[in-house]
């Protein structure tokens, strides 16, 4: 059943990764690295920023009048 455990691992990794993007309180996946060692949280935050900034941009483009009113 090792393969199944690893399989679940990828599913769990993506689940944890997605949660950590959307929820500030969710832990950043412990398995992330850089080529030379442990990755700092600020690197993971690039993804968090890309997703949130992208969503803001999409809403702003879709609702220009609401944006002007804000």
């Amino acid at each position, binding site marked *: 059943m090792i393969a199944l455990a690893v399989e679940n691992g990828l599913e769990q990794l993506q*689940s944890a990764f*997605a949660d950590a993007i959307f929820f500030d309180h969710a832990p950043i996946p412990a398995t992330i*690295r850089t080529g030379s060692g442990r990755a700092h949280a600020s690197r993971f935050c690039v993804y968090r920023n890309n997703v949130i900034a992208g969503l803001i941009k999409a809403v702003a483009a879709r609702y220009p009048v609401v944006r002007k009113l804000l």
Partner: protein
Amino acid sequence: MAKSSLIQTCRSSMPRPAAGAGLKPEHSDDILDQPRRVDFFEIHAENYMGDGGPPHYLLKRVRADYPVSIHGVGLSIGGTAPLDREHLARLKRLIEIYQPALFSEHLAWSTHDGVFLNDLLPLPYNEISLAHVCAHVSQVQETIGMKMLLENPSTYVAFGASSMTEIEFLSAVAQRTGCGLLLDVNNVHISAVNHDFSAVAYIDAFPIQRVDEFHLAGFAEDCDSEGARLLIDDHGRPVGDVVWDLYGRALARPCLAPTLIEWDNNVPPFAALASEVARARSLMSAQTGATPVMQAA
């Protein structure tokens, strides 16, 4: 139309060498009214999945005069979930309508638990993720009836769960599925700096015979919280000199695949984009010893 004749029709329409640009609606007047300055245009598939309106009006006019390449950003090839069949059906329809010379997607995931994350997220490279990616690539190719190209990502983190290199992973996908590869030279530079490996060694080791397209773009400089250099794939400025140098090295292997300039943020006037395209074309021509010539319309 039979699959094989569709592929022949598609693949014969891209000139060699070819240098192209991303299609931006704000450039429509320059593209439609001015002399031809690029060899092809590339679109993001997801921007043309609506039924009609200005996007399709522009794209149909452009497609009448230029080869088109379609670049998907939302299939989530690296996701553990099954591919979204409705999304795939929309992609198939787009490909049937526009008969692109090339179709490409990313080695990344962007959907989880039915939620779409609008970014290209990284995955560990091991046998399990390889099996997922190969199954998805094969499903895409069977659905759309043409070869797809898989693009190397730019990444900000890597994974302890990886057991093979990115090049080993991409080579294995290409070998098992018959897909081509899209070598994004800017992504190579970004990942090389972010993960402290040699971009030159990566270019030299890449399975160049599988490369059917290059991407070039600009990157932004940043630092992580420890002060280490962190490059961001922002597509918001000219191609960096270091990336031009790496591109020249890839061309010299040799590989004269169609080359796209990506400039998606802070979109410049069309002339600035076209001059980047001309630079790519002249580097390709220098490889062949030919004078750069604009392809006839």
